[in-house]
């Protein structure tokens, strides 16, 4: 009975959509990279970097949107580095990605400590405030749940639609899908594999960084070590869960976030009877189960993780 009441409360849905937002950005970013044939394990570090850069900019007095922009640029820089290694040099995408994650996260922590050497309670900034969309937010229940969010959340929903349109309805989307499926055929069509893959990885990395920036500029109001806490890896699981399709990625992110929101509320309700660690574990366990269920049906992009070298068959 109690848990049904939990699901009916509008706060639960507001929280679900809030938790889903960074996952939507991150999953979409990873999806874009993988659709072009590049696995981007740099996601966890790029999210950390985005979270730091966004927060640091605003902490130094920049506008919130400038913070988001700078975060996206930082993400693009690391995306460019990853594509230099994996697209142009054809290095192992696994190891390069892990290297990018370690580098980006540790650089973020390094500069955080340079900025604030001895602070134990991280200083706060004024984050994005919820923005009720006129008229739409008046719709009973749904209006409050969906249309009283912070601006970046609306941006995430719009971005999903744009990404789906781009991927399936435009020449550039077709090119991205082609280089991820059959690069040799794409090359025969006169498509530059290297440029398209780099483009996808750079844009995708910008999305990942915005996912991180959402956490510091919208969800929380400060940066701290281990802020991302595996969200990037969960995005990688969500991409597989979504079979590399933007709208399914949105669905997966919402489903996962709903599960997380429920877990948080159950934790408060049940309290000390069950160790809190068990609740915190549930999202990760849920991801592994979801992966296992979907794995057989997953339609991997055929050229995922296959480096392309001109003239090699």
């Amino acid at each position, binding site marked *: 009975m109690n848990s049904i009441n939990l699901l009916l409360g509008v706060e639960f849905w507001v929280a679900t959509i809030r938790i889903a937002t960074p996952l939507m950005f991150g999953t979409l970013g990873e999806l874009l990279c993988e659709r072009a044939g590049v696995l981007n394990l740099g996601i966890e570090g790029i999210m950390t970097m985005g979270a730091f850069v966004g927060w640091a900019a605003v902490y130094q007095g920049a506008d919130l949107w400038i913070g988001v922009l700078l975060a996206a640029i930082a993400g693009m820089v690391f995306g460019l580095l990853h594509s230099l290694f994996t697209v142009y*040099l054809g290095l192992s995408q696994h190891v390069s990605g892990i290297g990018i994650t370690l580098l980006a996260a540790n650089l973020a922590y390094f500069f955080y400590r340079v900025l604030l050497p001895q602070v134990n309670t991280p200083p706060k900034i004024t984050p994005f405030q919820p923005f009720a969309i006129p008229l739409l937010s008046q719709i009973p229940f749904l209006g409050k749940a969906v249309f009283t969010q912070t601006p970046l959340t609306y941006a995430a929903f719009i971005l999903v639609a744009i990404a789906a349109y781009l991927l399936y309805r435009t020449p550039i989307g077709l090119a991205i899908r082609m280089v991820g499926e059959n690069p040799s055929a794409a090359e025969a069509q006169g498509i530059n594999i290297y440029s398209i893959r780099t483009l996808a990885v750079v844009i995708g990395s910008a999305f990942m960084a915005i996912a991180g920036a959402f956490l510091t500029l919208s969800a929380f109001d400060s940066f701290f070590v281990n802020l991302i806490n595996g969200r990037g890896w969960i995005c990688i699981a969500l991409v597989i869960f979504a079979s590399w399709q933007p709208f399914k990625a949105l669905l997966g992110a919402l489903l996962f976030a709903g599960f997380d929101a429920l877990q948080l509320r159950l934790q408060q309700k049940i309290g000390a009877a069950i160790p809190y660690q068990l609740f915190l*574990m549930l999202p*990760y*366990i849920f991801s592994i189960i979801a992966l296992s269920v979907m794995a*057989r049906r997953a339609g991997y992009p055929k050229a995922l993780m296959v480096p392309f070298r001109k003239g090699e068959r």
Partner: protein
Amino acid sequence: MQFDRRETVPLGLAVLAPIAAIAIALLLCTPLISWTGMPAFTAYGIMFTGALGSPFAWSETLSRATPLMFTGLGVAVAFRARFWNIGAEGQFYLGAIAATLLGTGLLNLPAIILLPLIFMAGFLFGGTLLLLPAILKTRIQVDEVVTTLLLNFIVLLVVSYLVEGPLKDPAALGWPQALPVPPEATLPKLGGRAHWGLMIAIASAILIWILNARAVLGYQMKAIGANIQAALFAGIPINWVLLLTALLSGGLAGMGGVSEVSGLKGYLSLDLSPGFGYTGIVVAMLAQLHPIGVLISAIFIAAIYVGADAMSRAANLPSYLADVIVSTSLLCMLVSILLTRYRVRWRS
């Protein structure tokens, strides 16, 4: 730009590659040091003496290298078969759990029996943890990268539960740490903070070297890594070999956890590993997955950490600098490996 594969990699080039990678990484990180106004040359001097300049420094470096040898070996074994075990961190902690469970009162045995026993338990715990992703991969093609990564977070939460709950040390003044291991479950010291875990790591590396070079299993693991289609065609039981690889890889990382609890810290806590599992990937890659190379590269990486600690104290820099240098060397090493395996020809 074109890459021509070399038929054989000259030994000199293979040895030079990691050294060049670390040197370039240090060079790339100089702007971060100059930030504080300390000349980079002075800073690297402090780093060198801090890590290798005295017997005390050597004992620090070797004690720091020991867990990295175990996780590095674990990663190297798995990567050689192209089984992407990114979960050495979790397997390391599971080994530490095994040492705590069996080493703190459950078994009342003399050290000569108890120590080998807890190492075996740590091996089994770590190996079993990696079996789950391996089974998921071989049975239903679940990508092992994501599952091993996610398991790290699950294991850390298990550790958090254990050290706050059932295994909590009541004498630790409310600090969340597990009961300490008694003297019977403590590894003897080698001098300073270095301990016998180092010897066990070296012995493990030699065993893995023999396995790689002489045993059928070692050959099969390499064959799967080199070309899985060809391995299948040659009749190698791929799934079975991958499961054994996983057991061995996770087991080695697990032994690292035992060594750290029994040799250095004395108890399990949430800060037992400052990312040894992830650094193990860097160690394995610098060694180009060679077990003896792992020993050397672990000492290199440990020296960077210990030296950077000394440097950051002197220059008042955040200690994350060491992590930045180490992750930069991983990326440099990737390029180095490419240059040893291929000749680069600029398009005419």
